[in-house]
């Protein structure tokens, strides 16, 4: 027993000892010289690193205490091809035969490793490298590329040799190409598309069968293509038809690679939905999506230095001076709309040059019937006006935008851009209005027909230079811009107004049959310069200057049709020239360090408002405006980062804004003969003092976000209206300056998850307090408005196939008038929304949305509610979910109406526009990329 135990212990120790062994060997070059300090690695059979060591001066290495098993020993030495041998633990000591490393051909080292900086892959007999890093001139073929590759010979006839052996077969992506004739491939394929070139020994049939390697005299080549060259285009088409003659068609197609992006978009519909959204915009503009604004940026305070500001064009697409981008973000304004767009975009981006070019055609029109009623408060009585109008608008616009962005060297960039546009818009309206005094005495009845046509052309160009310096933080920017617009307007006004006296008997009748043909030509030029300089790591100073001049010449020719003959209307006909010159210069100093930034600065601004105007026959209306106006512009800004996910900011700035030209010139707008407007040559620029405060904080781990914004604007020389209401209740208004108006607003938001990733809620609270003024029959009216709007929302996503989004908000507006406080208003507007999307079964989805609006105003006993229910069911079809058939019902309850209410200085009004109501539509979509499978909305936070 004892012996047995001892034997056992001995045996075990033996076993323990035998579990580790030693591997030794030496590393040499092909000439049998030892390689010292070569790296030798002990790997598992799957190449996992176990241990490593270095050879000594004699080229010897040793691995001690190696656990039993199967290993690889890999020797590497700078500039040599690594060698791997396998080893198993048979003995306690394993001595490996010397490993002889082959030097990598000097040419390969030089060209691939040093010059092209490409990684080199060793795969047995194949050396593979990334050919995309080899520089060849544009338009080169693969043959041109091969000429540059080390070890490759290209003969006159295009035949190839590698390391002295003929290449008899060329494959692309491992597949035969044109029967495998090497020259067809190499002469036709563009070099830019190539990612890798692999050359290996041709395997003979016996080798393929037996796997025994034979020495081959022939080689084969395989070419791998770059990802982008394999990519096709993508696009989408939607076709739909419905009852009450509703239809939509929309298509877009994109193609892009490394350098070029081409896209096309087309839309035609009469559904009232614009048909274009943010995604379409991004697909259309591609890499140029966030590049507009071109080079005509006006430098100011706080613009930083190297930062580029991104801003979007206005919301309406029908102005002459707008950007193509705005066509994608238009809203529905009620009525029965028609809409059509065609757009083409091409971007080029290669090395240091970027070109963006876009053409866009937009055609739109609306037919609508509007009912509106408004009340004006005068010191002794009120006027009530009821108006019914039929309107139609028609718009046609062509636009082109080109931008060219060139990086001259690492310190200089220039951007040149040009926009051209041509627009034609037609509007016609037919309105019937009754005006009552104190809601009972009919004062007038009018029928006004307007036919208005506008035609305009625009050219807008700019050039910008950005310069940075060797000294980090130093920056210089300069730009110039030129804009020219030519506008022709033609208005035919046909109106009949019947005035009644106190007894309700016709007092007089006014007939107007007038044509107003006007022309204006505007030329503006602007130049902006800025420079910023770091004083130290934390202090910066910057200076800027802005200059602009806007010259406008115009004619307003008004003729009356009296007894069938056209006669010039001396009271309304004008010619004018205006020139608004603007010069602003300022400087600021900034301290910024560790998340804290503070700047103070000041500037000086000068406006010169000059105008000359003349009536037709040297009437007393001739005059001149020459109003220089200047002022100081103080500026201060503080921001503080509270960690990475919180920020606090406070800023003050003053701005001085020029008056609109139509407000400045004494030109009469009588398109509504009951409400005549005229400009004021004595008008001064409006000054505003702005204070902003914001704080936000998020706690990502719990998904909580809190934010608060507050802002206040206090006006001096605010442009307000001065109204005069005559005995016939015709209102004449003109703009004047007045001090003391203000707007205060705040926004508080809080969002948090109730159940993580399943139920998220958000609570917001908006409020605003405004004070505004108006003069009516020389009496000052002060109006105070208080608005608050609480809202709550819930996003419920219990499973990946359900998305339920609920939100409700109510907006309460209190309006108080100082001269007619019996008229104080309170109106409440409540909105409730529910959206529900779900996947019912394989590829079958339901999507519904319900919106219920309530409009309430107790003073008018008004209580309107508009419920809108939309629903659709859709089935994804075809391979890769490329197709979709959808059946939708819009406004299922047939209640659609566009309603709005307003209460401002001495006026309350409500407008309702009848709109496209219930319709059913069937549509088919084909999307090359496949349809979206999810039902949940994307959120980026």
């Amino acid at each position, binding site marked *: 027993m004892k012996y047995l135990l001892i034997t056992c212990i001995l045996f075990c120790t033996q076993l323990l000892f035998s579990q580790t062994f030693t591997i030794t060997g030496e590393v040499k070059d092909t000439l049998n010289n030892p390689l010292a300090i070569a790296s030798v690695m002990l790997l598992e059979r799957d190449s996992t690193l176990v241990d490593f060591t270095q050879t000594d001066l004699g080229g010897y290495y040793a691995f001690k205490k190696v656990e039993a098993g199967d290993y690889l020993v890999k020797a590497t030495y700078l500039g040599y091809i690594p060698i791997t041998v396998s080893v198993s633990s048979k003995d306690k000591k394993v001595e490996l035969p010397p490993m002889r490393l082959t030097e990598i051909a000097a040419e390969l080292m030089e060209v691939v*490793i040093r010059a092209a900086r490409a990684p080199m892959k060793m795969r047995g007999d194949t050396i593979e490298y990334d050919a995309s890093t080899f520089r060849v001139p544009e338009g080169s073929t693969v043959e041109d590329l091969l000429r540059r590759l080390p070890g490759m010979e290209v003969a006159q006839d295009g035949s190839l040799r590698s390391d002295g052996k003929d290449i008899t077969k060329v494959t692309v992506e491992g597949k035969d190409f044109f029967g495998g004739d090497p020259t067809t491939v190499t002469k036709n394929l563009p070099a830019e598309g190539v990612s890798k070139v692999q050359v290996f020994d041709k395997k003979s049939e016996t080798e393929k069968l037996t796997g025994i390697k034979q020495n081959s005299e022939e080689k084969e080549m395989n070419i791998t293509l770059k990802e982008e060259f394999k990519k096709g285009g993508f696009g989408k088409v939607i076709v739909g038809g419905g009852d009450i003659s509703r239809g939509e068609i929309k298509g877009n197609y994109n193609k892009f690679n490394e350098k070029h992006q081409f896209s096309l978009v087309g839309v035609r519909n009469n559904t009232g939905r614009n048909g274009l959204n943010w995604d379409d915009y991004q697909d259309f503009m591609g890499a140029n999506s966030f590049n507009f604004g071109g080079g005509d940026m006006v430098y100011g305070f706080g613009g930083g230095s190297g930062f580029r500001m991104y801003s979007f064009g206005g919301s309406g697409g029908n102005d002459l001076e707008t950007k193509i981008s705005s066509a994608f973000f238009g809203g529905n304004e009620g009525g029965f709309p028609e809409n059509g767009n065609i757009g083409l975009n091409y971007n080029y981006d290669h090395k240091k040059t970027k070109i963006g070019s876009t053409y866009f055609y937009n055609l739109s029109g609306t037919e609508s019937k509007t009912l509106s009623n408004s009340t004006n408060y005068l010191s002794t009585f009120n006027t009530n006006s009821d108006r019914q109008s039929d309107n139609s608008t028609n718009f046609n616009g062509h636009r082109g935008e080109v931008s060219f962005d060139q990086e001259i060297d690492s310190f200089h960039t220039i951007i040149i851009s040009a926009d051209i546009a041509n627009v034609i818009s037609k509007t016609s309206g037919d309105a019937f209005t009754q005006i009552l005094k104190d809601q009972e005495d009919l004062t007038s009845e009018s029928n006004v027909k307007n036919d208005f046509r506008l035609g305009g052309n625009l050219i807008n160009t700019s050039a910008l230079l950005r310069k940075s310096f060797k000294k*980090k933080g130093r920056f210089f920017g300069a730009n110039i811009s030129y804009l020219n617009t030519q506008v022709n307007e033609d208005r035919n006004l046909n109106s009949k107004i019947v005035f009644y006296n106190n007894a309700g008997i016709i007092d007089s009748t006014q007939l107007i049959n007038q044509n107003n043909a006007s022309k204006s030509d505007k030329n503006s030029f602007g130049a902006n310069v800025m420079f910023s300089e*770091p004083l130290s790591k934390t202090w910066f100073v910057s200076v800027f200057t802005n200059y602009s001049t806007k010259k406008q010449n115009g004619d307003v020719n008004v003729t009356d049709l009296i007894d069938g003959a056209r006669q010039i209307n001396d009271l309304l006909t004008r010619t004018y020239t205006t020139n608004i010159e603007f010069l602003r210069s300022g400087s600021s100093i900034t301290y910024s360090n*560790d998340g804290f930034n503070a700047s103070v600065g000041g500037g000086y601004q000068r406006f010169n408002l000059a105008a000359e105007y003349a009536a037709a026959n040297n009437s007393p209306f001739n005059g001149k405006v020459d109003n220089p106006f200047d002022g100081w512009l103080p500026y201060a800004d503080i921001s503080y980062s509270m960690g*990475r996910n919180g920020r606090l900011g406070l800023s003050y700035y003053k701005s001085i804004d020029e008056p609109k030209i139509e407000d400045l010139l004494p030109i009469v707008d009588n398109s509504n003969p009951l409400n005549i407007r005229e400009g004021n040559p004595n008008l001064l620029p409006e000054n505003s003092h702005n204070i902003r405060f914001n704080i936000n904080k998020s706690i990502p781990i719990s998904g909580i976000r809190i934010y608060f914004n507050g802002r206040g604007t206090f006006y001096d020389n605010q442009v307000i209206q001065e109204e005069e209401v005559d005995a016939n209740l015709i209102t004449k208004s003109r703009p004047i300056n007045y001090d003391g108006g203000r707007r205060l607003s705040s926004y508080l938001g809080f969002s948090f998850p109730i159940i993580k990733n399943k139920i998220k809620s958000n609570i917001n609270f908006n409020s605003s307090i405004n004070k505004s003024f108006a003069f009516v029959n020389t009496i000052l009216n002060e109006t105070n408005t208080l608005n608050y709007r609480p809202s709550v929302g819930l996003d419920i996503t219990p499973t990946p196939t359900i998305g339920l989004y609920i939100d409700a908000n109510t907006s309460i507006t209190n309006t108080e008038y100082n001269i007619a406080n019996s008229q104080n208003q309170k109106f409440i507007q409540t909105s409730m929304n529910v959206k529900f999307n779900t996947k019912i079964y394989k590829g079958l989805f339901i999507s519904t949305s319900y919106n219920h609006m309530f409009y309430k105003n107790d003073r008018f006993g008004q209580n309107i509610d508009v419920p809108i229910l939309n629903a659709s069911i859709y089935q994804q079809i075809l391979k890769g979910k490329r197709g979709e058939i959808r059946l939708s019902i819009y406004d299922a309850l047939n209640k659609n109406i566009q309603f709005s209410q307003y209460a401002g200085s001495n006026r309350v009004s409500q407008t309702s526009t009848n709109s496209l109501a219930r319709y059913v539509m069937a549509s088919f979509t084909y999307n090359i990329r496949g349809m979206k499978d999810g039902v949940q909305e994307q959120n980026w936070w």
Partner: protein
Amino acid sequence: MKNIILFILISFALQLKAQENTGLIVFERHTYWINIMSKLPFMTQEDIDRDMLTWGKNQGKYGRKYELTFNPNKSVYTEKEEEANYGYSWKEDDYLLIRDYEEKKTKDLVTFLGKTFLIEDETPKYKWKILNEIKEIAGYLCMKAETVDPIKNTPVFAWFTNKISVSGGPEGYSGLPGMILALELNENDVTIEAISVDIKFSVDLPIPKKMKGKEIKRNAYDQKVSKYIVETIEGRKNPYWQVRY
């Protein structure tokens, strides 16, 4: 005897010349956001194509610089301070990794979701596979190796040179027969590549006197990060806006 001493001296000098083990490496770290987002499970092909079209050309254009200061025993890896911040400064996250090669210990100061943690632990062991590929980085011939990201479970490629005999690297990676001069995280989501290598006789390791943060073990920290990533992706958001990739 004299000859032997001379031989030893010469070979010692040769050894010194060949063995570079003290110095400063500047790395540039590039993040390829579109590549990262493309791999998130909730992104559709349409979303990916759109992002690629809009931002693809600019992704990874601007890198951030990091410095690895090392000697044979220790290294410190942290973000390189910019010469100027262009007039606006954000609050930066803490990111300082100390590796002690002798003691096999690590000390990391890192910010995760706005909170600073101090991770003092053993050096993590990476399972490296050695691949058959070579490339030159910053004048050094490097060999390729592969491991797996311990948190994200994604492939990590490293390029190391045995000319610098310190077994360290950027972003805390170590354990190869030489210095890591480049990393490729999950194919091309993030790349970190040496732009300059400055070999010196001695360096001052920029170890701050005070390192304040909530103490945590590496395992617990990794679990915290991993949990956030999983939950955020489940909520259809990109976790890497908040978490260092």
